[in-house]
Protein backbone atom coordinates (compact mmCIF):
# COMPACT_ATOMS: atom_id res chain seq x y z
CA UNK A 1 0.00 0.00 0.00
CA UNK A 2 2.75 2.35 1.00
CA UNK A 3 4.70 1.37 -2.07
CA UNK A 4 1.84 2.39 -4.35
CA UNK A 5 1.46 5.80 -2.74
CA UNK A 6 5.16 6.48 -3.18
CA UNK A 7 5.13 5.51 -6.83
CA UNK A 8 2.32 7.96 -7.64
CA UNK A 9 4.19 10.67 -5.79
CA UNK A 10 7.31 9.70 -7.71
CA UNK A 11 5.56 10.06 -11.04
CA UNK A 12 4.14 13.49 -10.21
CA UNK A 13 7.48 14.66 -8.86
CA UNK A 14 9.26 13.26 -11.89
CA UNK A 15 6.92 15.05 -14.29
CA UNK A 16 7.34 18.39 -12.49
CA UNK A 17 11.11 18.11 -12.56
CA UNK A 18 11.24 17.04 -16.19
CA UNK A 19 9.01 19.98 -17.16
CA UNK A 20 11.36 22.27 -15.26
CA UNK A 21 14.32 20.75 -17.10
CA UNK A 22 12.52 21.44 -20.40
CA UNK A 23 11.97 25.05 -19.35
CA UNK A 24 15.71 25.35 -18.76
CA UNK A 25 16.68 23.81 -22.11
CA UNK A 26 13.95 25.15 -24.42
CA UNK A 27 15.47 28.65 -24.84
CA UNK A 28 18.45 27.01 -26.54
CA UNK A 29 16.14 24.97 -28.77
CA UNK A 30 14.31 28.18 -29.67
CA UNK A 31 17.53 29.56 -31.12
CA UNK A 32 18.02 26.31 -33.02
CA UNK A 33 14.45 26.49 -34.33
CA UNK A 34 14.79 30.09 -35.50
CA UNK A 35 18.09 29.35 -37.24
CA UNK A 36 16.34 26.73 -39.43
CA UNK A 37 13.35 28.94 -40.15
CA UNK A 38 12.35 30.86 -43.21
CA UNK A 39 13.00 34.59 -42.80
CA UNK A 40 9.56 35.53 -44.16
CA UNK A 41 7.82 33.31 -41.62
CA UNK A 42 9.71 35.09 -38.85
CA UNK A 43 8.77 38.50 -40.23
CA UNK A 44 5.11 37.50 -40.29
CA UNK A 45 4.69 35.37 -37.18
CA UNK A 46 7.78 35.93 -35.04
CA UNK A 47 10.22 33.37 -33.64
CA UNK A 48 8.92 29.82 -33.46
CA UNK A 49 10.36 26.84 -31.65
CA UNK A 50 9.46 24.57 -34.56
CA UNK A 51 10.10 26.11 -38.00
CA UNK A 52 7.03 26.48 -40.20
CA UNK A 53 9.18 25.83 -43.24
CA UNK A 54 12.51 24.14 -42.81
CA UNK A 55 15.00 26.47 -44.43
CA UNK A 56 18.81 26.51 -44.64
CA UNK A 57 19.09 29.99 -46.18
CA UNK A 58 20.46 31.46 -42.95
CA UNK A 59 23.29 28.94 -42.80
CA UNK A 60 24.04 29.39 -46.48
CA UNK A 61 24.17 33.15 -45.95
CA UNK A 62 26.42 32.90 -42.89
CA UNK A 63 28.73 30.33 -44.46
CA UNK A 64 28.98 32.22 -47.75
CA UNK A 65 32.03 33.85 -46.33
CA UNK A 66 33.26 31.58 -43.56
CA UNK A 67 36.69 33.20 -43.25
CA UNK A 68 35.84 35.35 -40.25
CA UNK A 69 34.12 32.68 -38.21
CA UNK A 70 36.88 30.18 -38.98
CA UNK A 71 39.48 32.73 -37.90
CA UNK A 72 37.62 33.28 -34.61
CA UNK A 73 37.44 29.53 -34.12
CA UNK A 74 41.16 29.22 -34.80
CA UNK A 75 42.11 31.97 -32.34
CA UNK A 76 39.80 30.55 -29.67
CA UNK A 77 41.05 26.98 -30.07
CA UNK A 78 44.67 28.17 -29.87
CA UNK A 79 44.28 30.27 -26.75
CA UNK A 80 41.98 27.77 -25.05
CA UNK A 81 44.38 24.85 -25.47
CA UNK A 82 47.51 26.88 -24.76
CA UNK A 83 45.89 28.74 -21.88
CA UNK A 84 44.53 25.57 -20.27
CA UNK A 85 47.89 23.83 -20.51
CA UNK A 86 49.85 26.78 -19.14
CA UNK A 87 47.35 27.44 -16.33
CA UNK A 88 47.42 23.83 -15.16
CA UNK A 89 51.22 23.69 -15.42
CA UNK A 90 51.93 26.89 -13.50
CA UNK A 91 49.20 26.16 -10.94
CA UNK A 92 50.84 22.83 -10.17
CA UNK A 93 54.28 24.43 -10.20
CA UNK A 94 53.42 26.76 -7.33
CA UNK A 95 50.99 24.40 -5.55
CA UNK A 96 53.65 21.72 -5.06
CA UNK A 97 56.24 23.79 -3.13
CA UNK A 98 53.61 25.30 -0.83
CA UNK A 99 52.19 21.84 -0.17
CA UNK A 100 55.56 20.85 1.38
CA UNK A 101 55.29 21.54 5.09
CA UNK A 102 59.03 22.07 5.48
CA UNK A 103 59.31 24.76 2.81
CA UNK A 104 60.77 27.91 4.29
CA UNK A 105 58.52 30.87 3.60
CA UNK A 106 55.45 28.95 2.39
CA UNK A 107 53.31 31.15 4.62
CA UNK A 108 54.58 34.25 2.84
CA UNK A 109 53.38 32.81 -0.46
CA UNK A 110 50.03 31.74 1.04
CA UNK A 111 49.41 35.22 2.41
CA UNK A 112 50.42 36.73 -0.90
CA UNK A 113 47.77 34.61 -2.60
CA UNK A 114 45.13 35.39 0.03
CA UNK A 115 45.64 39.14 -0.23
CA UNK A 116 45.31 38.93 -4.00
CA UNK A 117 41.91 37.25 -3.47
CA UNK A 118 40.70 39.95 -1.12
CA UNK A 119 41.93 43.05 -2.86
CA UNK A 120 42.62 44.09 -6.41
CA UNK A 121 43.84 47.16 -8.21
CA UNK A 122 40.69 47.29 -10.28
CA UNK A 123 39.96 47.63 -13.97
CA UNK A 124 41.73 50.88 -14.85
CA UNK A 125 45.20 50.16 -13.39
CA UNK A 126 45.08 46.64 -14.89
CA UNK A 127 44.12 48.13 -18.25
CA UNK A 128 47.03 50.59 -18.11
CA UNK A 129 49.42 47.79 -17.11
CA UNK A 130 48.35 45.49 -19.94
CA UNK A 131 48.29 48.13 -22.65
CA UNK A 132 50.92 50.73 -21.71
CA UNK A 133 53.55 48.60 -19.99
CA UNK A 134 53.16 45.01 -21.19
CA UNK A 135 51.67 45.81 -24.62
CA UNK A 136 49.46 42.72 -24.55
CA UNK A 137 46.65 44.44 -26.42
CA UNK A 138 45.98 43.11 -29.91
CA UNK A 139 47.97 39.96 -29.17
CA UNK A 140 46.66 36.49 -28.43
CA UNK A 141 48.56 36.58 -25.12
CA UNK A 142 45.90 38.83 -23.62
CA UNK A 143 43.67 35.74 -23.36
CA UNK A 144 46.37 33.67 -21.69
CA UNK A 145 48.75 35.64 -19.48
CA UNK A 146 46.63 38.05 -17.34
CA UNK A 147 44.30 35.17 -16.38
CA UNK A 148 47.08 32.59 -16.02
CA UNK A 149 46.79 31.91 -12.29
CA UNK A 150 43.93 31.87 -9.82
CA UNK A 151 44.47 31.53 -6.06
CA UNK A 152 41.36 29.32 -5.90
CA UNK A 153 42.87 26.71 -8.20
CA UNK A 154 46.25 26.93 -6.47
CA UNK A 155 44.71 26.29 -3.05
CA UNK A 156 42.57 23.51 -4.48
CA UNK A 157 45.62 21.77 -5.90
CA UNK A 158 47.74 22.41 -2.84
CA UNK A 159 45.09 20.76 -0.65
CA UNK A 160 45.14 17.73 -2.94
CA UNK A 161 48.95 17.51 -2.96
CA UNK A 162 49.19 17.77 0.80
CA UNK A 163 46.78 14.85 1.16
CA UNK A 164 49.12 12.54 -0.76
CA UNK A 165 51.11 10.35 1.65
CA UNK A 166 54.30 12.05 2.71
CA UNK A 167 56.29 8.83 2.62
CA UNK A 168 56.21 8.75 -1.20
CA UNK A 169 58.16 11.97 -1.49
CA UNK A 170 60.45 10.99 1.38
CA UNK A 171 61.27 7.65 -0.22
CA UNK A 172 62.05 9.29 -3.54
CA UNK A 173 64.28 11.83 -1.81
CA UNK A 174 66.40 8.97 -0.42
CA UNK A 175 66.98 7.74 -3.93
CA UNK A 176 68.48 11.13 -4.60
CA UNK A 177 65.69 12.40 -6.82
CA UNK A 178 65.45 16.16 -7.18
CA UNK A 179 62.22 17.92 -6.25
CA UNK A 180 61.49 18.75 -9.87
CA UNK A 181 61.89 15.07 -10.79
CA UNK A 182 59.62 14.02 -7.91
CA UNK A 183 57.14 16.66 -9.05
CA UNK A 184 56.69 15.41 -12.58
CA UNK A 185 57.49 11.70 -12.09
CA UNK A 186 55.42 11.08 -8.94
CA UNK A 187 53.19 13.97 -7.92
CA UNK A 188 51.71 14.81 -11.32
CA UNK A 189 50.76 11.21 -12.23
CA UNK A 190 49.13 10.77 -8.82
CA UNK A 191 47.13 13.97 -9.12
CA UNK A 192 45.14 13.26 -12.28
CA UNK A 193 41.72 13.87 -10.63
CA UNK A 194 42.49 17.39 -9.44
CA UNK A 195 44.38 18.22 -12.64
CA UNK A 196 41.42 17.07 -14.74
CA UNK A 197 39.02 19.17 -12.66
CA UNK A 198 41.10 22.33 -12.95
CA UNK A 199 41.81 21.70 -16.64
CA UNK A 200 38.11 21.33 -17.44
CA UNK A 201 37.13 24.42 -15.45
CA UNK A 202 39.88 26.46 -17.13
CA UNK A 203 38.93 25.11 -20.55
CA UNK A 204 35.31 26.20 -20.17
CA UNK A 205 36.37 29.58 -18.80
CA UNK A 206 38.78 30.21 -21.68
CA UNK A 207 36.31 29.05 -24.33
CA UNK A 208 33.80 31.58 -23.03
CA UNK A 209 36.15 34.59 -22.92
CA UNK A 210 34.81 37.75 -24.55
CA UNK A 211 35.65 40.57 -22.12
CA UNK A 212 39.32 40.52 -23.15
CA UNK A 213 38.33 41.11 -26.77
CA UNK A 214 36.00 43.94 -25.80
CA UNK A 215 38.74 45.70 -23.82
CA UNK A 216 41.95 44.94 -25.63
CA UNK A 217 41.39 43.81 -29.23
CA UNK A 218 40.88 46.21 -32.13
CA UNK A 219 42.28 43.84 -34.73
CA UNK A 220 39.24 41.82 -35.82
CA UNK A 221 41.39 38.83 -36.81
CA UNK A 222 42.20 38.30 -33.13
CA UNK A 223 38.78 38.44 -31.50
CA UNK A 224 37.53 35.44 -29.56
CA UNK A 225 34.63 33.36 -30.81
CA UNK A 226 32.22 34.64 -28.15
CA UNK A 227 33.06 38.26 -28.91
CA UNK A 228 32.70 37.55 -32.61
CA UNK A 229 29.16 36.40 -31.83
CA UNK A 230 28.58 39.49 -29.73
CA UNK A 231 29.61 41.76 -32.61
CA UNK A 232 27.29 39.82 -34.89
CA UNK A 233 24.38 40.88 -32.68
CA UNK A 234 25.32 44.52 -33.25
CA UNK A 235 26.37 44.22 -36.91
CA UNK A 236 23.23 42.53 -38.12
CA UNK A 237 21.20 45.07 -36.16
CA UNK A 238 23.06 47.74 -38.10
CA UNK A 239 22.35 46.15 -41.45
CA UNK A 240 18.72 45.79 -40.44
CA UNK A 241 18.42 49.41 -39.38
CA UNK A 242 19.71 50.49 -42.76
CA UNK A 243 17.08 48.32 -44.42
CA UNK A 244 14.34 49.58 -42.15
CA UNK A 245 15.21 53.13 -43.11
CA UNK A 246 14.30 52.08 -46.61
CA UNK A 247 17.77 52.06 -48.13
CA UNK A 248 16.66 49.29 -50.40
CA UNK A 249 13.79 46.90 -50.03
CA UNK A 250 15.53 44.29 -52.16
CA UNK A 251 18.38 43.75 -49.70
CA UNK A 252 15.92 43.50 -46.86
CA UNK A 253 14.77 40.29 -48.43
CA UNK A 254 18.17 38.98 -49.43
CA UNK A 255 19.71 39.42 -45.96
CA UNK A 256 18.00 36.98 -43.61
CA UNK A 257 19.05 39.03 -40.60
CA UNK A 258 16.99 37.38 -37.85
CA UNK A 259 17.65 33.79 -38.85
CA UNK A 260 21.28 34.47 -39.75
CA UNK A 261 21.92 35.86 -36.30
CA UNK A 262 20.61 32.70 -34.69
CA UNK A 263 22.42 30.48 -37.18
CA UNK A 264 25.63 32.21 -36.16
CA UNK A 265 24.84 31.54 -32.49
CA UNK A 266 24.32 27.85 -33.26
CA UNK A 267 27.57 27.65 -35.22
CA UNK A 268 29.43 29.27 -32.32
CA UNK A 269 27.81 27.61 -29.34
CA UNK A 270 26.37 24.42 -30.80
CA UNK A 271 29.42 22.17 -31.09
CA UNK A 272 30.66 22.85 -27.58
CA UNK A 273 27.23 22.58 -25.98
CA UNK A 274 27.26 18.86 -26.75
CA UNK A 275 30.65 18.44 -25.09
CA UNK A 276 29.83 20.29 -21.88
CA UNK A 277 27.54 17.67 -20.29
CA UNK A 278 30.56 15.37 -20.18
CA UNK A 279 32.38 18.03 -18.18
CA UNK A 280 29.67 18.04 -15.53
CA UNK A 281 31.25 15.58 -13.14
CA UNK A 282 34.48 17.58 -13.02
CA UNK A 283 32.57 20.72 -12.13
CA UNK A 284 30.68 18.92 -9.41
CA UNK A 285 33.96 17.52 -8.14
CA UNK A 286 35.42 21.02 -8.13
CA UNK A 287 32.58 22.17 -5.89
CA UNK A 288 33.14 19.46 -3.35
CA UNK A 289 36.91 19.91 -3.20
CA UNK A 290 36.69 22.32 -0.31
CA UNK A 291 39.24 23.03 2.36
CA UNK A 292 40.73 26.13 0.85
CA UNK A 293 41.98 27.25 4.25
CA UNK A 294 45.47 28.74 4.47
Amino acid at each position, binding site marked *: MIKKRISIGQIVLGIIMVLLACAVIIPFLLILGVSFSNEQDIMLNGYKLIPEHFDLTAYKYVLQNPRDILQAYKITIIFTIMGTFLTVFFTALIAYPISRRDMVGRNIISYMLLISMLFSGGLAPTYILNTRFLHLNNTIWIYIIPSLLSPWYIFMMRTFFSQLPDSIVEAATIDGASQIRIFYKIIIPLSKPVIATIAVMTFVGKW*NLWYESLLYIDDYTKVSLQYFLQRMMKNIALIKEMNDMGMSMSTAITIPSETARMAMAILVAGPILFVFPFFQKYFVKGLTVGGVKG
Partner: protein
Amino acid sequence: MKEAIIKKSGKIRRRGGKLAYQGELWGMAALPVLWFIIFSYLPMFGITIAFKNYNYRKGIFGSEWVGLKNFEFFLKSNDMLIVVRNTILMNALFIASLTICALLVAIFMYNIRSRKLVKALQTSYITPNFVSYVMVAYVVYAVLNPQYGIANQLLNKLGIGGVDWYSQPKYWPIILTIVHVWKAVGMRSVMYYAALMGVDETLFEAAEIDGANKVQITYHILIPEILSIIVIMAIMDIGGIFRGDFGLFYLVTQDSPLLYSVTDVVDTYVYRTLMESNNVSLSTAIGFIQSVVGCIMVLVTNFASKKIDGDLGLI
Protein backbone atom coordinates in the same frame (compact mmCIF):
# COMPACT_ATOMS: atom_id res chain seq x y z
CA MET B 1 60.69 0.02 8.57
CA LYS B 2 58.89 2.91 6.98
CA GLU B 3 59.71 5.16 9.90
CA ALA B 4 63.34 4.21 9.60
CA ILE B 5 63.32 5.23 5.97
CA ILE B 6 61.70 8.51 6.77
CA LYS B 7 64.20 9.23 9.51
CA LYS B 8 67.05 8.30 7.23
CA SER B 9 65.67 10.50 4.49
CA GLY B 10 65.60 13.43 6.85
CA LYS B 11 69.30 12.92 7.52
CA ILE B 12 70.12 12.53 3.88
CA ARG B 13 68.28 15.65 3.06
CA ARG B 14 70.18 17.56 5.69
CA ARG B 15 73.48 16.17 4.46
CA GLY B 16 72.59 16.60 0.82
CA GLY B 17 71.97 20.25 1.57
CA LYS B 18 68.86 21.76 3.09
CA LEU B 19 69.68 24.82 1.09
CA ALA B 20 69.53 22.92 -2.18
CA TYR B 21 66.14 21.48 -1.23
CA GLN B 22 64.72 24.90 -0.35
CA GLY B 23 66.32 26.31 -3.45
CA GLU B 24 64.59 23.76 -5.63
CA LEU B 25 61.19 24.51 -4.08
CA TRP B 26 61.63 28.26 -4.44
CA GLY B 27 62.95 27.77 -7.95
CA MET B 28 59.66 26.11 -8.87
CA ALA B 29 57.57 28.78 -7.16
CA ALA B 30 59.59 31.69 -8.57
CA LEU B 31 57.78 32.23 -11.87
CA PRO B 32 54.24 32.01 -10.45
CA VAL B 33 55.24 34.33 -7.59
CA LEU B 34 56.61 36.79 -10.14
CA TRP B 35 53.30 36.55 -12.01
CA PHE B 36 51.38 37.49 -8.87
CA ILE B 37 53.68 40.44 -8.24
CA ILE B 38 53.14 41.74 -11.78
CA PHE B 39 49.45 41.00 -12.36
CA SER B 40 48.08 41.30 -8.87
CA TYR B 41 50.32 43.66 -6.92
CA LEU B 42 51.50 46.14 -9.56
CA PRO B 43 47.89 47.18 -10.32
CA MET B 44 47.42 47.76 -6.58
CA PHE B 45 50.18 50.35 -6.72
CA GLY B 46 48.47 51.72 -9.82
CA ILE B 47 45.80 52.99 -7.44
CA THR B 48 47.94 56.14 -7.16
CA ILE B 49 46.28 57.05 -10.47
CA ALA B 50 43.11 57.71 -8.45
CA PHE B 51 44.87 60.62 -6.71
CA LYS B 52 46.13 62.11 -9.96
CA ASN B 53 44.67 63.58 -13.09
CA TYR B 54 45.84 60.86 -15.45
CA ASN B 55 46.95 61.97 -18.85
CA TYR B 56 47.86 59.38 -21.53
CA ARG B 57 50.75 61.46 -22.81
CA LYS B 58 52.27 62.23 -19.42
CA GLY B 59 51.86 58.70 -18.03
CA ILE B 60 51.39 57.70 -14.39
CA PHE B 61 54.48 59.46 -13.08
CA GLY B 62 54.12 62.62 -15.13
CA SER B 63 50.46 63.34 -14.36
CA GLU B 64 49.83 65.93 -11.65
CA TRP B 65 48.44 65.13 -8.20
CA VAL B 66 44.89 66.25 -7.49
CA GLY B 67 44.39 64.78 -4.01
CA LEU B 68 40.92 63.42 -3.31
CA LYS B 69 39.19 65.30 -6.12
CA ASN B 70 38.20 62.13 -8.03
CA PHE B 71 36.73 60.51 -4.93
CA GLU B 72 34.82 63.68 -4.06
CA PHE B 73 33.46 63.90 -7.58
CA PHE B 74 32.08 60.36 -7.49
CA LEU B 75 30.80 60.41 -3.92
CA LYS B 76 28.93 63.67 -4.50
CA SER B 77 27.48 62.63 -7.86
CA ASN B 78 23.97 61.41 -8.46
CA ASP B 79 25.34 58.42 -10.34
CA MET B 80 26.89 57.10 -7.17
CA LEU B 81 23.54 56.69 -5.47
CA ILE B 82 21.97 54.99 -8.49
CA VAL B 83 24.87 52.68 -9.21
CA VAL B 84 25.39 51.60 -5.59
CA ARG B 85 21.66 51.12 -5.05
CA ASN B 86 21.35 49.00 -8.21
CA THR B 87 24.35 46.85 -7.35
CA ILE B 88 23.20 46.08 -3.81
CA LEU B 89 19.50 45.67 -4.56
CA MET B 90 20.02 43.45 -7.59
CA ASN B 91 22.52 41.28 -5.75
CA ALA B 92 20.15 41.01 -2.78
CA LEU B 93 17.39 39.87 -5.15
CA PHE B 94 19.76 37.35 -6.73
CA ILE B 95 20.89 35.91 -3.41
CA ALA B 96 17.37 35.48 -2.04
CA SER B 97 15.91 34.00 -5.25
CA LEU B 98 18.82 31.68 -5.95
CA THR B 99 18.83 30.32 -2.40
CA ILE B 100 15.10 29.58 -2.42
CA CYS B 101 14.97 28.12 -5.94
CA ALA B 102 18.09 25.98 -5.54
CA LEU B 103 16.85 24.67 -2.20
CA LEU B 104 13.49 23.71 -3.72
CA VAL B 105 15.15 21.97 -6.65
CA ALA B 106 17.53 20.12 -4.33
CA ILE B 107 14.71 18.94 -2.05
CA PHE B 108 12.65 17.72 -5.01
CA MET B 109 15.70 15.91 -6.37
CA TYR B 110 16.32 14.36 -2.98
CA ASN B 111 12.88 12.80 -3.08
CA ILE B 112 13.37 11.25 -6.51
CA ARG B 113 14.28 7.58 -6.15
CA SER B 114 15.74 7.00 -9.60
CA ARG B 115 19.43 7.92 -9.61
CA LYS B 116 19.48 7.93 -13.40
CA LEU B 117 16.69 10.49 -13.57
CA VAL B 118 18.45 12.67 -10.99
CA LYS B 119 21.62 12.63 -13.06
CA ALA B 120 19.80 13.48 -16.29
CA LEU B 121 17.95 16.33 -14.58
CA GLN B 122 21.14 17.71 -13.08
CA THR B 123 22.77 17.70 -16.51
CA SER B 124 19.98 19.81 -17.98
CA TYR B 125 19.84 22.21 -15.03
CA ILE B 126 23.60 22.76 -15.21
CA THR B 127 23.75 23.39 -18.98
CA PRO B 128 23.21 27.20 -18.78
CA ASN B 129 26.16 27.37 -16.40
CA PHE B 130 28.50 26.35 -19.22
CA VAL B 131 27.54 28.97 -21.80
CA SER B 132 28.93 32.48 -21.98
CA TYR B 133 26.86 35.58 -21.32
CA VAL B 134 27.06 36.33 -25.04
CA MET B 135 24.99 33.24 -25.68
CA VAL B 136 22.72 34.07 -22.74
CA ALA B 137 22.13 37.49 -24.30
CA TYR B 138 21.04 35.76 -27.53
CA VAL B 139 18.63 33.54 -25.63
CA VAL B 140 17.11 36.50 -23.78
CA TYR B 141 16.90 38.40 -27.06
CA ALA B 142 15.02 35.53 -28.67
CA VAL B 143 12.45 35.76 -25.89
CA LEU B 144 12.24 39.54 -25.52
CA ASN B 145 12.71 40.79 -29.07
CA PRO B 146 9.89 43.38 -29.30
CA GLN B 147 8.85 42.39 -32.85
CA TYR B 148 9.42 38.65 -33.03
CA GLY B 149 10.09 37.50 -29.45
CA ILE B 150 8.19 34.72 -27.74
CA ALA B 151 7.17 36.94 -24.81
CA ASN B 152 5.33 39.45 -26.97
CA GLN B 153 3.72 36.69 -29.05
CA LEU B 154 2.22 35.34 -25.84
CA LEU B 155 1.15 38.77 -24.59
CA ASN B 156 -0.47 39.52 -27.94
CA LYS B 157 -2.35 36.24 -27.87
CA LEU B 158 -3.64 37.09 -24.40
CA GLY B 159 -4.72 40.45 -25.74
CA ILE B 160 -2.50 42.41 -23.40
CA GLY B 161 -0.28 43.77 -26.12
CA GLY B 162 3.48 43.63 -26.53
CA VAL B 163 6.06 45.48 -24.51
CA ASP B 164 9.18 47.20 -25.84
CA TRP B 165 11.32 45.33 -23.29
CA TYR B 166 14.69 46.94 -24.02
CA SER B 167 13.38 50.40 -23.23
CA GLN B 168 11.30 49.66 -20.11
CA PRO B 169 13.48 49.66 -16.98
CA LYS B 170 10.75 48.53 -14.60
CA TYR B 171 10.73 44.92 -15.85
CA TRP B 172 14.48 44.40 -15.68
CA PRO B 173 15.01 43.58 -12.00
CA ILE B 174 12.72 40.59 -12.54
CA ILE B 175 14.16 39.65 -15.93
CA LEU B 176 17.75 39.75 -14.68
CA THR B 177 16.82 37.77 -11.57
CA ILE B 178 15.24 35.05 -13.71
CA VAL B 179 18.30 34.97 -15.97
CA HIS B 180 20.64 34.78 -12.98
CA VAL B 181 18.68 31.96 -11.36
CA TRP B 182 18.40 30.14 -14.69
CA LYS B 183 22.18 30.26 -15.09
CA ALA B 184 23.18 29.45 -11.52
CA VAL B 185 20.46 27.21 -10.08
CA GLY B 186 21.92 23.98 -11.44
CA MET B 187 25.27 24.37 -9.76
CA ARG B 188 23.89 25.59 -6.48
CA SER B 189 21.22 22.88 -6.25
CA VAL B 190 23.92 20.24 -6.81
CA MET B 191 25.68 21.63 -3.74
CA TYR B 192 22.56 21.51 -1.59
CA TYR B 193 21.72 18.07 -2.98
CA ALA B 194 25.14 16.77 -1.95
CA ALA B 195 24.55 18.18 1.55
CA LEU B 196 21.11 16.52 1.72
CA MET B 197 22.60 13.19 0.69
CA GLY B 198 24.90 13.50 3.66
CA VAL B 199 22.03 13.75 6.15
CA ASP B 200 21.75 10.67 8.37
CA GLU B 201 18.53 8.82 7.40
CA THR B 202 18.05 7.37 10.89
CA LEU B 203 17.20 10.91 11.95
CA PHE B 204 13.79 10.82 10.28
CA GLU B 205 13.01 7.11 10.39
CA ALA B 206 11.50 7.65 13.83
CA ALA B 207 9.49 10.60 12.57
CA GLU B 208 8.17 8.53 9.65
CA ILE B 209 6.97 5.83 12.05
CA ASP B 210 5.22 8.52 14.07
CA GLY B 211 3.34 9.45 10.92
CA ALA B 212 5.10 12.64 9.90
CA ASN B 213 4.61 13.45 6.23
CA LYS B 214 7.26 14.45 3.70
CA VAL B 215 6.68 18.17 4.13
CA GLN B 216 7.00 17.97 7.90
CA ILE B 217 10.17 15.88 7.65
CA THR B 218 11.66 18.32 5.14
CA TYR B 219 10.76 21.35 7.19
CA HIS B 220 11.66 20.06 10.64
CA ILE B 221 14.55 17.71 9.95
CA LEU B 222 16.14 18.05 6.49
CA ILE B 223 16.40 21.83 6.23
CA PRO B 224 17.70 22.36 9.77
CA GLU B 225 20.32 19.68 9.08
CA ILE B 226 21.78 21.54 6.09
CA LEU B 227 21.01 25.04 7.34
CA SER B 228 24.62 25.87 8.08
CA ILE B 229 25.61 25.21 4.45
CA ILE B 230 22.69 27.28 3.15
CA VAL B 231 23.63 30.17 5.42
CA ILE B 232 27.32 29.94 4.58
CA MET B 233 26.64 30.05 0.83
CA ALA B 234 24.35 33.05 1.29
CA ILE B 235 26.92 34.79 3.45
CA MET B 236 29.63 34.17 0.86
CA ASP B 237 27.33 35.71 -1.75
CA ILE B 238 26.74 38.68 0.54
CA GLY B 239 30.53 39.09 0.65
CA GLY B 240 30.37 39.86 -3.07
CA ILE B 241 27.31 42.10 -2.89
CA PHE B 242 29.28 45.13 -4.04
CA ARG B 243 30.43 43.45 -7.24
CA GLY B 244 28.14 43.40 -10.25
CA ASP B 245 28.21 40.54 -12.75
CA PHE B 246 29.51 42.49 -15.75
CA GLY B 247 28.38 40.04 -18.44
CA LEU B 248 24.85 39.95 -17.08
CA PHE B 249 24.40 43.69 -16.75
CA TYR B 250 26.28 44.68 -19.90
CA LEU B 251 25.44 41.98 -22.46
CA VAL B 252 22.03 40.69 -21.45
CA THR B 253 20.60 44.22 -21.32
CA GLN B 254 22.20 44.90 -24.75
CA ASP B 255 23.89 47.81 -22.92
CA SER B 256 20.71 49.77 -23.53
CA PRO B 257 21.12 53.28 -22.02
CA LEU B 258 17.35 53.44 -21.50
CA LEU B 259 17.70 50.77 -18.83
CA TYR B 260 20.63 52.31 -16.92
CA SER B 261 18.37 53.60 -14.16
CA VAL B 262 18.01 50.02 -12.89
CA THR B 263 20.72 48.01 -14.67
CA ASP B 264 23.77 50.24 -14.27
CA VAL B 265 25.98 48.67 -11.58
CA VAL B 266 29.40 49.60 -10.21
CA ASP B 267 31.22 47.36 -12.69
CA THR B 268 29.46 48.67 -15.80
CA TYR B 269 29.92 52.23 -14.54
CA VAL B 270 33.65 51.70 -13.97
CA TYR B 271 33.90 50.20 -17.45
CA ARG B 272 32.13 53.09 -19.16
CA THR B 273 34.08 55.68 -17.21
CA LEU B 274 37.29 54.07 -18.47
CA MET B 275 36.42 53.06 -22.04
CA GLU B 276 33.77 55.57 -23.06
CA SER B 277 34.50 58.71 -21.03
CA ASN B 278 38.24 57.87 -21.04
CA ASN B 279 38.49 59.15 -17.48
CA VAL B 280 41.19 56.82 -16.18
CA SER B 281 41.59 58.54 -12.81
CA LEU B 282 37.89 58.61 -11.97
CA SER B 283 37.52 54.97 -13.02
CA THR B 284 40.48 54.02 -10.80
CA ALA B 285 38.99 55.91 -7.86
CA ILE B 286 35.63 54.14 -8.16
CA GLY B 287 37.35 50.79 -8.60
CA PHE B 288 39.38 51.53 -5.48
CA ILE B 289 36.28 52.29 -3.42
CA GLN B 290 34.68 49.10 -4.73
CA SER B 291 37.75 47.07 -3.84
CA VAL B 292 37.94 48.47 -0.29
CA VAL B 293 34.24 47.96 0.41
CA GLY B 294 34.38 44.50 -1.19
CA CYS B 295 37.36 43.55 0.96
CA ILE B 296 35.61 44.70 4.14
CA MET B 297 32.47 42.79 3.13
CA VAL B 298 34.44 39.57 2.56
CA LEU B 299 36.26 39.91 5.88
CA VAL B 300 33.05 40.59 7.80
CA THR B 301 31.12 37.77 6.14
CA ASN B 302 34.07 35.44 6.57
CA PHE B 303 34.05 36.23 10.27
CA ALA B 304 30.30 35.58 10.37
CA SER B 305 30.55 32.20 8.64
CA LYS B 306 33.30 31.15 11.02
CA LYS B 307 30.99 31.99 13.92
CA ILE B 308 28.42 29.59 12.46
CA ASP B 309 30.83 26.81 11.64
CA GLY B 310 34.50 26.94 12.61
CA ASP B 311 35.56 24.76 9.66
CA LEU B 312 34.12 27.03 7.02
CA GLY B 313 35.26 30.38 5.78
CA LEU B 314 38.01 31.48 3.49
CA ILE B 315 40.74 32.54 5.89
